[in-house]
């Protein structure tokens, strides 16, 4: 492997960051924080924690879809520089796959023909060139998720946020999509933050895994995974992978006990 990523370098200014942010929901009390996260350009971070720990909230803060009660959010500001992939594919059923993928461009004023051309490119990039004119209902779960990924990538974002994107898929599709995501990262180098409750997925994809405490979510631990990205073939059988997954599991368990 020619390239081995080594996570964030401390000198590079972060492309997005959360600074002592706190989120409080009316009637439900504090959901997140205080919480810090500095995202270096091109790094892959996984947020892992029990449900209700505010990891999705942290993602929405980075996306600018929610504002914190306290603290500072700095994010890649340009339109289309931050993209989100939701837990379900979230494709509009009345549009073709191509029109769904072109939507972010068309919303920001790209001429229709140009938007459609780039949408087809993005679809080809996730292996869905043939499905451009299909409706989302005609796609399998894995294909729909790929289309959703293509929609996020169509604006060439610098920050890609994924909220448990593969949770609803079967194990095989899930693994294939994890490899696809890493291949996309290798090609485009966006910073990636993804939320998951799957320990092995976190260990497989991320360079840095942040474990959150049960709500309100705070950082319980941070684990760096020192392995080349994308992962070498057979990485899942590698002792380094097993060790990392085990470490994440242990931290998760002790975070749950401590609360």
């Amino acid at each position: 492997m020619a390239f081995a990523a080594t996570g964030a370098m401390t000198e590079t200014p972060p492309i997005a960051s959360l600074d002592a942010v706190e989120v409080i929901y009316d009637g439900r009390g504090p959901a997140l924080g205080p919480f810090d996260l500095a995202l270096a350009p091109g790094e892959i971070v996984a947020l892992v924690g029990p449900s209700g720990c505010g990891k999705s909230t942290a993602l929405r803060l980075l996306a600018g879809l929610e504002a914190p009660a306290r603290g500072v959010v700095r994010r890649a500001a340009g339109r289309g520089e931050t993209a989100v992939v939701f837990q379900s594919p979230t494709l509009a059923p009345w549009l073709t796959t191509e029109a769904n993928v072109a939507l972010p461009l068309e919303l920001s004023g790209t001429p229709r023909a140009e938007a459609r051309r780039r949408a087809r490119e993005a679809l080809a990039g996730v292996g869905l060139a043939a499905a451009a004119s299909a409706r989302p209902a005609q796609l399998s779960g894995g294909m729909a998720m790929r289309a959703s990924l293509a929609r996020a990538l169509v604006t060439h974002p610098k920050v890609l946020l994924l909220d448990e994107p593969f949770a609803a898929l079967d194990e095989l599709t899930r693994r294939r999509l994890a490899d696809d995501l890493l291949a996309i990262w290798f090609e485009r180098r966006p910073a990636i933050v993804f939320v998951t409750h799957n320990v092995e997925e976190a260990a497989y994809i991320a360079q840095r895994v942040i474990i959150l405490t049960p709500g309100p979510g705070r950082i319980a631990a941070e684990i760096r995974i020192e392995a080349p990205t994308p992962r070498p073939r057979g990485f899942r059988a590698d002792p380094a992978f097993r060790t990392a997954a085990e470490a994440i599991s242990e931290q998760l368990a002790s975070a749950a006990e401590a609360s």
Partner: protein
Amino acid sequence: MKRLDILAPVALIAVILAIWQAACALWNVPEYLLPTPTAIGAALVSNAAMLAAAGWRTLSMALEALVVASLLGGAMAILVTLNRALGQAIRPIAVAMQVTPVVAIAPLFIIWAGVQHPDRAIVALAAIVAFFPIFSGTVRGLTSADPDLERLFDLYGARAGQRLVRLRIPAALPFVVEGHKVAAGLAIIGAVVAEFVAGSGGAQGLAWRILEAGNRLRTAEMFAAILALALMASVVHVLFQELEKRALTWWRGR
């Protein structure tokens, strides 16, 4: 459709008609009280042209009302979802109008429209009853878009107009179509009720045919007009059901 699905209702109707016919003959029921099915059939045939014309009058008034209700209901729904305060302001008025029986306000509209134009009052009254299913269906539809898709529109800085045209209106489509299906049935009922209240031959619709035949104790003709009305309303219902099915198939993409 399976053969049984067609055969069963046809058989039931045949049995009812046979018993009806036999009972009328057996007990010598006078025709003004309960005409035999054959007499009704004869009245249907001999009045076919008139009933068709009257049916068309009622139907066209109901459809006009549906168009008016569709435009007003759709526009009001959009306004209400764009402005929360406006929605809250309209709500009590809308509820009051919806729960007031159309018969109660019909005389008022007949006065306003003038004796010369009962058809205007009929269209207006039918439009009022058709308005609500369209309005409430559209409001529900416009707020039914996937919250994550709404977030996606936030993320890419969509303008209010883009959100409405590219997300909320298409997301509302199934609800809008269902609202129109319900409204079409109500528009016919509204038109017939208003015609009854108008009570004059000015509009020449099916309700007037029922009234007129009733006043003359021509019960067979009355039955014929009722049958024509039932048939017309059923056809409209089936057409709108088919429309809904097709629209939903297109919308879902399968």
